[in-house]
């Protein structure tokens, strides 16, 4: 079996990155302009990378499916971004941020990557401030912080409830500067539908122009995948409508390993499902748990009365409320990590205490905070979130508690990468949510923005030269080769095949069916029987899709149905790998809860003896069981413990 080489540099953990940078190969500035880099995705990760590589002098081609880079899904991040600046003088440090992240991820992340992330986190904030990102500030003019789940310090930087928007606009502005300088060429409304591998190296991509339908080839010396996560495999999620796994999945089918696919984060605080036509779920930022208290009624009679509309939550007295997170986890209370909060909500609702008509909702209550701090402060902190909530539900959270329920949100799993963020295909990189490396089995709030920008601004630009240094004599990549030709034909055939089915059901029909199944059997809580059933059922849905899907419109024009069909076809394959991985991992860790592996108090029970590894799956052809490669995790800088938030 191939041994996965994560290429960890020498030295103590706090010296590794320095060491790496001091010894890696460089490309001198005059050679950089001979080298082309394709970046797929212009969210925080891809946008930051495009800007930085452009500044460095490489020729960057950036692809994305939206009409503008500013619309990548990163824009929707609300709560904030972590950094170990220790501005609040509360004993924060690189080590503590590293420690919290590894612990929050339930010891399934690669230690060295996480340490680097913590080490670089402060620089990210410097960079963003220089770009003009209007972070919240104190009266003295210094930067403000708030706290987030899984931490006991305040290290989260934020811009009201629109942190992702402001950070993305920062990266976008830097990218724009490089577009003007001619160093970044930007391809909007272009969807990557395959990666091209020549002589074992990634040398280009195949795209579909979403306006003209044209299938095109693009060559480069290296290809970077920054295409975000796959939470939409559940159909309903907090992700944008078009977020998809296609780019990542196609690289998997060309030989890149896919790591920890079963680590899917279900976010505890989202607006509950309201109707059948529902197309997405709206997140209410985790930052709300700073001041909001989560509860359900203690007495089942009160629950009934509430559901029948005979009782209002505000009429239930303190002693009749069950602040179940504060009860179960006194040390962290409402700020336990997401996986813990989500399962606790499910536990109460499954026990019959859910507070809306469907029985799948709990309260998030701000009354105490409003009494303590006043309306004005609460409005300052969360105004836009409260407005959004009221607009969607018709309820005003200043007067009545919000109702929330967990929803699919983020994928910790992703393309396997080494310390350099290179995949198992030489010259193919994966950054941001698309890779797997930093969050283990559970991501802490405000850590994704940090990781995306860290990868894009600092890590990738420093590591890619180590590879490109060998390409300075290669010359431009020729796209008139059999490999490009075949990939282009495959893409055209895929589209033709989809149109030719002429079945009876829409793409959404299959996506919804898949989503429900995944939520049910591969969601918050998983067991062997359910997973085996899921694997069989996913296959059936997939087969039916290829027999009975109906794609209308034409191939050579804008066609939203065709776009969806291409994406859903890949979700239908990825879903199976998620279930296979979940079945293989017979332990509970982070977001992955196996019912077979729990403590007497129903807390998740990790099994370090058997599962202290990253599962990296290798594609072995259609219909074949993928091969599992294990990257053993070693923890030298941190002691392995069962997580405890009590």
């Amino acid at each position, binding site marked *: 079996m191939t041994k996965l080489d994560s290429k960890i540099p020498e030295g103590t953990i706090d010296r590794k990155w320095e060491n790496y940078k001091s010894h890696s190969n460089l490309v001198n500035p005059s050679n950089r302009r001979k080298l082309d880099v394709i970046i797929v995705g212009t969210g925080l990760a891809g946008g930051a990378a495009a800007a930085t590589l452009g500044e460095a002098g490489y020729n960057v081609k950036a692809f994305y499916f939206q*009409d503008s880079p500013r619309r990548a*899904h990163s824009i929707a991040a609300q709560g904030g971004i972590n950094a170990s600046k220790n501005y609040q003088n509360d004993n924060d440090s690189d080590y503590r941020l590293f420690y919290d992240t590894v612990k929050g991820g339930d010891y399934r992340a690669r230690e060295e990557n996480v340490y680097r992330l913590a080490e670089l986190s402060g620089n990210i904030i410097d960079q963003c401030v220089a770009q*003009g990102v209007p972070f919240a500030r104190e009266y003295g003019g*210094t930067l403000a912080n708030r706290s987030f789940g899984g931490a006991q310090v305040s290290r989260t930087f934020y811009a009201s409830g629109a942190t992702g928007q402001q950070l993305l606009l920062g990266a976008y502005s830097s990218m*724009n500067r490089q577009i003007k300088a001619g160093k970044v060429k930007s391809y909007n409304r272009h969807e990557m539908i395959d990666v091209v591998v020549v002589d074992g190296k990634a040398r280009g991509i195949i795209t579909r122009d979403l306006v003209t339908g044209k299938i095109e080839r693009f060559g480069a010396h290296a290809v970077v995948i920054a295409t975000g996560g796959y939470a939409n495999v559940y159909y309903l999620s907090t992700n944008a409508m078009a977020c998809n796994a296609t780019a990542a999945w196609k690289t998997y089918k060309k030989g890149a390993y896919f790591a920890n696919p079963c680590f899917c984060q279900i976010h505890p605080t989202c607006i509950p499902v309201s109707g059948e*036509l529902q197309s997405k779920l709206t997140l209410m930022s985790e930052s709300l748990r700073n001041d909001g208290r989560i509860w359900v009624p203690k007495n089942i009679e009160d629950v009934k009365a509430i559901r029948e509309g005979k009782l209002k939550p505000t009429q239930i007295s303190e002693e009749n409320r069950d602040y179940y997170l504060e009860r179960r986890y006194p040390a962290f209370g409402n700020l336990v990590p997401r996986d813990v909060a989500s399962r606790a909500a499910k536990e109460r609702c499954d026990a019959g205490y859910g507070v809306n008509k469907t029985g799948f909702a709990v309260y998030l209550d701000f009354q105490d905070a409003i009494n303590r701090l006043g309306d004005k402060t609460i409005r300052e902190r969360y105004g836009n979130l409260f407005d*959004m909530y009221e607009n969607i539900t*018709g309820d005003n959270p200043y007067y009545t508690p919000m109702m929330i329920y967990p929803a699919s949100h983020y994928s910790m799993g992703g393309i396997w990468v080494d310390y350099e963020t290179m995949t198992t295909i030489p010259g193919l990189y994966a950054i941001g949510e698309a890779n797997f490396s930093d969050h283990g089995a559970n991501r802490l709030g405000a850590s994704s923005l940090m990781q995306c920008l860290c990868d894009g601004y600092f890590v990738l630009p420093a590591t890619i030269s180590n590879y490109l240094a060998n390409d300075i004599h290669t010359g431009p990549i020729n796209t008139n080769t059999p490999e490009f030709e075949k990939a282009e034909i495959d893409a055209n055939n895929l589209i033709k095949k989809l149109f030719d089915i002429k079945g009876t059901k829409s793409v959404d029909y299959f996506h919804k069916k898949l989503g429900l199944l995944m939520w049910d059997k591969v969601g918050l809580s998983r067991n062997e029987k359910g997973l085996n059933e899921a694997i069989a059922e996913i296959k059936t849905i997939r087969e039916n899709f290829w027999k009975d899907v109906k794609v209308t419109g034409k191939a050579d024009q804008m*066609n939203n149905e065709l776009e969806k069909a291409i994406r859903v076809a890949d979700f239908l394959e990825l879903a199976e790998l998620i279930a296979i991985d979940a079945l293989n991992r017979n332990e509970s860790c982070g977001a992955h809860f196996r019912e077979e592996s729990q403590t007497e108090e129903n807390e998740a029970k990790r099994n370090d003896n058997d599962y202290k590894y990253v599962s990296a799956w290798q594609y072995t052809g259609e219909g074949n069981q993928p091969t599992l490669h294990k990257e053993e995790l070693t923890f030298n800088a941190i002691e392995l413990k069962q997580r405890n938030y009590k």
Partner: protein
Amino acid sequence: MDFTLKIWRQENATAKGSQQEYKVKDISSDTSFLEMLDALNQQLVEKGEDVISFDNDCREGVCGTCSLYINGEAHGPKKLVTTCQLYMRSFTDGQTIYIEPFRANAFPVIKDLVVDRSALDRIQQAGGYTSFNTGSAPEANAMPIAKEDAAAAFDAAECIGCGACVATCKNASAMLYVSAKVSQFAYLPQGKVEAAERVLNMVAQMDTEGFGNCTNTGACEVECPKGISIKNIARMNREFMCASLTSE
């Protein structure tokens, strides 16, 4: 709820478009406007017809992808929301709803309700940035910024670039959009260094793209889903005047 929809259909940029009538039935008032259109598209698929193209993505009101001119108003009748955050409870049962793309010379139609707004990106490329290379930034707290200034910069920076201001303006002016960016930087010390160049270049690009002039009707502010204030336009005019006077 039931609705009659009159929707603009146009195959591509060069084809002639026309208004088509559709009906949707049994839509719950808690359904969002775009989910209502999803339901209509499902019907079209069932009938084997091409779906109606409309831009959308985050459906949380922040990505700026969705557009639509609904019954004569950008983003529909409700104030301070984007189309994706518009719910059918804002309409009455049986109502006829007219749905058009955002129209402006600088926004050619791509298909149906989808228009090309890349002119807005090109204006940003002309100067909507500070020139700090990655790695060259000073310590974040080295430069204190008054809380009010940071907040004012944020208010301007909240623009989502949807183009409602342009679609609403009778002159198809992009002044509100451009001024939001200029203002954001004008409030911040980091923006000062390149202030003059920025405003001159962005305004020049705006003119090149074929956006119209501002005649102070204030319609843009009314329709802006993020409530970007026209005070930003005044601020930009000031910046522009200063820059024009000092530049050769």
